[in-house]
């Protein structure tokens, strides 16, 4: 069947279904439309614009940081955001924000890409590093603790970096991080946008179901998160398929970096990713449908949610006395790097005596690098 379609060249089937003129160059997973490059650019950019307008993501005059890793998603995001800001006069002050974890052979190379993006898109770049913030680079952490739990450190630190950038202004209590205090005046941020795409969100929905993490399942599909006193974060690519983003980056010849983190085998998330990619091949809408399922979950009002307080030491949100980053740092600095690794919270959010140092090994695989913890 397929063969006969391929050999008998029907001009109609190869024509763009929007402009009815140019040759179709791709088939979009979300609606199976066959469209040409130019119509694809328009459709893609307008979808993002619509998400931004409908969800009122920004207000004129806001300072918006684009989380930039040098990878394709954030590169496309930086490009599209600067285009839309100009075209639709959002009046935003955009800049690129990169986190340097201190991983030789990975982050140093990808930061070079971000530095080129800074020039290409005319967006100022700010880099904050783990070394400056915490006194430890990921290379040093791996040297101290080995390759087993390093993703936990990286993930916890990364989440906190976002908050710290914001907290410095919200309440100047972050004595933990003198470097950032000093650099803070340069970094005033109203909002952070990240390049998380539909595939990422669908994976996260599945992972949160597999972990039984009701609290995160409830918020992982929201386009904007963090209005509750933390830095507001938005995901304008919430409904954009990964394949579309890659195709866009390829056709536009955008400059991006593609190598997996050398420390991250990322096995658990990898399985989920492969699974949804298999689903997508059978049914291209599967990814958007999983997001819809995640959105439509209703959590019983009697379900006990983990209570959120603040860390006594640094002021970051935490359900414990000390936040995870402070516990991990304390462990590193005292030469007990296993401190804080593993489960510190019992079932149903019941707090155990934290920090736990043993019996937590079974939980290691569940906080892989790239956890989309919104």
């Amino acid at each position, binding site marked *: 069947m*397929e063969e006969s379609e*391929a050999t008998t060249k029907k001009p109609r089937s190869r024509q763009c279904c929007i402009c009815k003129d140019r040759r179709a*160059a791709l088939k979009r997973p979300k609606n199976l439309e066959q469209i040409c490059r130019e119509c694809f650019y328009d459709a893609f950019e307008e979808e993002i614009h619509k998400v931004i307008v409908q969800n009122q993501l920004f207000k004129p005059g806001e300072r918006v940081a684009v989380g930039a890793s040098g990878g*394709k998603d954030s590169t496309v995001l930086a490009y599209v955001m600067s285009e839309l800001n100009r075209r639709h006069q959002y009046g935003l002050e955009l800049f690129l924000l990169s986190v340097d974890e201190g991983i030789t052979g990975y982050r140093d190379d990808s930061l070079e890409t971000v530095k080129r993006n800074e020039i290409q898109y005319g967006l100022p770049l700010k880099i904050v590093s783990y070394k400056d913030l915490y006194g430890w680079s990921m290379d040093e952490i791996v040297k101290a603790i080995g390759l087993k739990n390093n993703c936990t450190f990286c993930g916890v630190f990364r989440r906190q970096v976002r908050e710290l950038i914001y907290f410095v202004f919200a309440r100047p209590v972050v004595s933990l991080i003198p470097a950032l205090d000093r650099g803070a005046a340069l970094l005033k941020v109203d909002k952070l946008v990240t390049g998380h795409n539909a595939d990422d969100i669908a994976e996260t929905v599945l992972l949160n179901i597999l972990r039984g993490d009701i609290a995160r399942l409830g918020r992982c599909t929201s386009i904007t998160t963090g209005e509750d006193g933390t830095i507001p974060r938005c995901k304008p690519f919430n409904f954009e398929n990964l394949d579309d983003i890659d195709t866009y980056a390829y056709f536009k010849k955008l400059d991006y970096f593609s190598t997996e983190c050398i420390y991250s085998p990322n096995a658990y998330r990898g399985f989920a990713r492969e699974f949804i990619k298999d689903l997508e091949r059978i049914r291209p809408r599967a990814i958007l449908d999983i997001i819809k399922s995640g959105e439509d979950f209703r959590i019983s009002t009697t379900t006990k949610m983990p209570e959120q307080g603040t860390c006594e030491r640094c002021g970051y949100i935490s359900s414990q006395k000390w936040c995870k980053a402070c516990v991990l740092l304390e462990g590193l600095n005292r030469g007990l790097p296993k401190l804080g690794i593993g489960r510190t919270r019992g079932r149903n959010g019941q707090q155990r005596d934290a920090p736990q140092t043993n019996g937590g090994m079974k939980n290691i695989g569940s906080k892989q690098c790239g956890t989309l913890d919104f």
Partner: protein
Amino acid sequence: MKGIAARHLGVVEMHLTLEFGGGLELLCQSVKIHNVEVDPQTGKEKLTMRDLLSWVHANLIKERPEMFMKGDSVRPGVLVLVNDCDWELSGQLDTRLKEKDVIVFISTLHGG
């Protein structure tokens, strides 16, 4: 040698440009663009993407072939463009290739 022999047999070699991106180049010695000559298999006149994939698997992929192939097709998450056109529009594995075609493989399975 092989080329001359093939021409004597009346088989025409095809010159193709293959481009690997999104990390796939790491599977073929970090070379992104390969200009290759591919013989259509004996007894076949036309070269299809199915034939090309098994040729690439045998001749270019030096490590972790499972990152590139799954079954007789590419692994889900690998985009394929034939002359800058998604291969879904040209019949995927049954896409017929012509002399000087450009085929691009991009892995989407990297972080961004």
